């Protein structure tokens, strides 16, 4: 294709185009869904038995903090999807480590005892239920974030996918923590942390599927 042919192709296709909103504003489009996720998880199942004892700040307040952190990570993914605005490697690593650490830190802040759990024989099943619930809760946000990222032009879809997958996992955990009262570290790390990491792995898979199509 030479310059004249290129110009002809462009001329055929040229029409007024509205630029995308800035990444932070586009991430805010996810906010209603994120808040709905937080409310839906305990509403569909049940609120944790010690919900009243936690108080508003430690229950809803920390979940909202977690949602804000999740949305921030999604905003970073949306920024990564804009050509010329790729994130530095250090920023990506910090975001990933920070995102994974967030549910654990909030768990440490929330819990007073670290021995609430189920009998050993039921541990695997309880972990499976929490893992499934958290990952399932992340799915709507994951799908919307995938569309938001795909509407841009991610030059590194794997990195963008990792970030928005992680962000959606953190958002889902904000709902899960209002439902699950277990504080045994093995349960929290494997089931709650595992679901966040699983959502982070699903992100790049979705991003690459959407990119191929």
């Amino acid at each position, binding site marked *: 294709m030479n310059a004249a042919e290129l110009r002809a192709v462009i001329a055929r296709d040229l029409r007024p185009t509205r630029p995308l909103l800035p990444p932070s504003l586009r991430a805010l489009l996810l906010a209603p869904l994120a808040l709905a996720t937080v409310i839906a998880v305990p509403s569909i199942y049940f609120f944790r038995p010690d919900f009243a004892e936690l108080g508003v700040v430690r229950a809803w307040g920390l979940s909202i903090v977690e949602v804000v952190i999740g949305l921030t990570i999604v905003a970073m993914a949306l920024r990564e999807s804009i050509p010329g605005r790729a994130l530095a490697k250090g920023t990506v690593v910090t975001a990933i480590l920070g995102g994974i650490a967030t549910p654990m830190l909030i768990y440490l802040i929330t819990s007073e005892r670290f021995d609430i759990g189920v009998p050993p024989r039921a541990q695997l099943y309880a972990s499976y239920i929490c893992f499934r619930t958290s990952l399932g809760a992340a799915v709507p946000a994951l799908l919307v974030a995938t569309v938001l990222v795909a509407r841009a032009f991610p*030059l590194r879809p794997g990195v963008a996918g990792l970030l928005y997958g992680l962000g959606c996992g953190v958002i889902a955990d904000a709902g899960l923590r209002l439902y699950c009262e277990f504080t045994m570290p093995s349960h929290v790390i494997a089931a709650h942390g595992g679901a966040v990491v699983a959502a982070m792995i699903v992100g790049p898979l979705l991003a690459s599927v959407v990119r191929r199509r």
Partner: protein
Amino acid sequence: MAGYLAGRLDAFDGLYALIAPRIRSYLLGQCRDGGLADDLVQETFLQLHRSRRTYEAGRPVTPWVFAIARHVYLMHRRSTGRRLKFHETFAAETRAGDLPRDDVRVLADQDTVRRALDAVPADQRRALEMHHVEGWSFAEIAERLGIRVNAAKTRAFRGMRKLKGQIKP
């Protein structure tokens, strides 16, 4: 850039005149081939056009365009690598097939493949060659031929089936 986003062709011309030489020299520095650099410049502007809504008003245009140019170059390098790998694999399989092979036999085989390819319908043959020989992804083939991705896959699959049918006794 604002004029271009508003749909004015003269604004695109201005952008092209301003940036194309810089993009070309960047790509020339990467690939060291004038003809290829020209092709990649056109490809860069095509990609730029498709993703023009990702440009954020008020930000400098240059980093945005150069990021796309770099991506186009890396994609080209990746697809060239795939093509080379295909040729090496094909050559190795041909050598390993039935040794010793003389030139006449090789030419005969090439002729058989060529005849078999001729029997494949043109649209299927094009998709088949673009994917299996030239190394394009189905998404890229769909974009270039102006068809859906599934149609590209179907054409390549049917073309390969037909080709195998022609070659097998």
